């Protein structure tokens, strides 16, 4: 990866990636506050520290591709191009949310963007992704399906069944494991007899690689190459994105299972500061540019909050809508 990651970067491209990561970071930090203010309720899983994975991956995918995500998906949704306003409204539970408010933080959907959620069952999205890829195959479409899941999902039976099925049937699935070293309070080495996740793909005949998930360029290039290979040869690829979650698992997590020092060490390798340092070092960005990007991101978040605040609630009389389709298929 390294040398790819070092290939010449243009200012536009660098700023674009940084902008996206700053938008997600600003969004997540604001969510943290809003949870304290009880504007957002239920479970809230923040993405701080993992921004490079969502941004690099989405930049390398095409709009026709399908995306299947997890309950830690604000970053995926925003990087996919779902407006902050509709995501924030969803976290408020408002009718203008991307799931009409019915889903909340763990269930963001956008059919038009082929963003299939938002799944709160660990590993529950993998079979769905296999099916979306199967549909593309049977419909002779070139779209691939990108499926995000965490290191914890690797222990589930559905990981095993889905990888085998995707490889056996040569389906265009890109398995993207966000390995942030913990599943709630369970460190990877206490969940897996063998902790090298990318190595787990080979027995299924699936090509795999580990990627520095803190380097947005590395992610973008690895996903780009993988997507290309999948479109060319058919058949799945697995990428292990090595990353780290800066905040607690959820808002209820006292973090008894890891120490500050470890967190701080990772924060030094954070995707935003490293990219910022790099762009400045390469003379592609000034401190002023950075300030502007951050200011714009915060402004966009504030607009999203206002939108959410002002949006209407779904009528209680509509409670039972959407359990079944309202139109024939």
């Amino acid at each position, binding site marked *: 990866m390294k040398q790819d990651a070092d290939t010449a970067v243009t200012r536009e491209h660098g700023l674009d990636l940084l902008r996206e990561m700053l938008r997600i970071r600003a969004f997540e930090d604001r969510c943290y506050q809003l949870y304290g203010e009880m504007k957002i309720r239920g479970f809230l899983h923040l993405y701080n520290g993992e921004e490079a994975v969502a941004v690099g991956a989405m930049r390398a995918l095409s709009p026709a591709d399908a995306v299947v995500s997890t309950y830690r998906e604000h970053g995926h949704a925003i990087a996919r191009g779902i407006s902050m306003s509709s995501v924030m409204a969803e976290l408020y539970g408002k009718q203008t949310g991307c799931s009409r408010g019915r889903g909340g933080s763990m269930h963001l959907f956008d059919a038009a963007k082929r963003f299939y959620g938002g799944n709160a069952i660990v590993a529950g999205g993998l*079979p769905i992704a296999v099916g979306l890829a199967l549909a593309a195959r049977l419909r002779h479409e070139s779209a691939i399906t990108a499926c995000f899941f965490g290191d914890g999902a690797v222990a589930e039976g559905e990981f095993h069944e889905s990888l085998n099925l995707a490889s056996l049937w040569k389906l265009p699935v890109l398995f993207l494991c966000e390995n942030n070293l913990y599943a709630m309070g369970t460190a990877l080495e206490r969940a897996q007899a063998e902790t090298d996740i990318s190595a787990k793909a080979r027995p299924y005949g699936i090509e795999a690689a580990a990627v520095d998930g803190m380097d947005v360029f590395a992610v973008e290039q690895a996903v780009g190459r993988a997507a290309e290979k999948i479109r060319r040869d058919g058949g799945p690829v697995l990428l292990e994105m090595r990353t780290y979650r800066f905040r607690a698992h959820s808002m209820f997590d006292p973090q008894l299972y890891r120490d500050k020092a470890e967190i701080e060490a990772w924060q030094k390798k954070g995707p935003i500061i490293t990219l910022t340092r790099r762009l400045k070092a390469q003379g592609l960005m000034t401190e002023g540019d950075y300030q502007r990007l951050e200011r714009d991101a915060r402004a966009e978040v504030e607009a999203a909050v206002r939108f959410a605040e002002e949006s209407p609630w779904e009528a209680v009389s509509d409670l039972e809508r959407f359990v079944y389709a309202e139109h024939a298929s």
Partner: protein
Amino acid sequence: MPSTPPESRPVITYRDAVREATRGAMQADPRVFLMGEDVGRYGGSYAVSKGLLEEFGPERIRDAPLSESAFVGAGIGAALGGMRPIVEIMTVNFSLLALDQILNNAATLSHMSGGQLNVPVVIRLATGAGRQLAAQHSHSLEGWYAHIPGLRIAAPATIDDARFMLGAALASPDPVLLFEHLYLYNMEGQLTRGVERVDLDHAAVRRPGRDVTLITYGGSLHKCLTAAADLAKDGIEAEVLDLRSLRPLDDAAIIASVRRTRRAIVVDEGWRSGSLAAEVTTRIVEQAFYDLDAPVARVCTAEVPIPYPKHLEDAALPSPARFVSAARVVIAGTGAR
């Protein structure tokens, strides 16, 4: 309409009817495909899909490995992706391994997404006991599945329904589970002339009667018709109502029949506690309490994992003899007084 002599229509099995339904749907709609364990080269564990691999090829008649959760989930995903999958879970007994996909994904995606997504997948499952397959292979869980909002549950019990319910299910934008009682596959009969489609929602009176309503579905329908014939010999006219759809239930048909007969016996092959029969009984109480001349009775399966030996399995399952005596009790009005 003038009915022509039955000879003029071929006698087919329930199995043939489901196969024809599958073939017809696949010929009519390229989005339809069949996926499941041994549906292809083996021909289906109950031979339902025999010959279809040769006709449609391995892409559309897709043998799946032993991975119930993954291939059921893949059916859900394929439905999201624009296909109309028919997923065969060899028997309901194995569907437990896919229950997370069915309950947490198929049943919830439409609502969770605010109506953006639909999951038009059809899942076919063989269900029921009576073949001495013992505790792990004799479940009747269709009534249990009927607890889950977002799913439609139906049980074809006749040759016509075996032939046409699949089409109705495929036309539904919602996930549909079709439960086929393994006892019915060899049942022979003729398609009703002129019938070319059926709906998925309505119960059907299979035998009219005035004295008591036997409410049932699936494999138990034929046992109830047998019981009704026996009762007729003593001048008791039992109405037999085939629910057909277990979710949603056709309350109107249930209540209309019970208002007529003022007595009801609910029969299902599920374990008694928490059975579909309990739900039907409760709806009758909620909607027709003052029309009842006797407490509603239910005849279900004994609360045991189904034992292997025939005499014990028979003792565990609902039987016409039990319906007849239940009917006598209800009509004598000597309920729980």
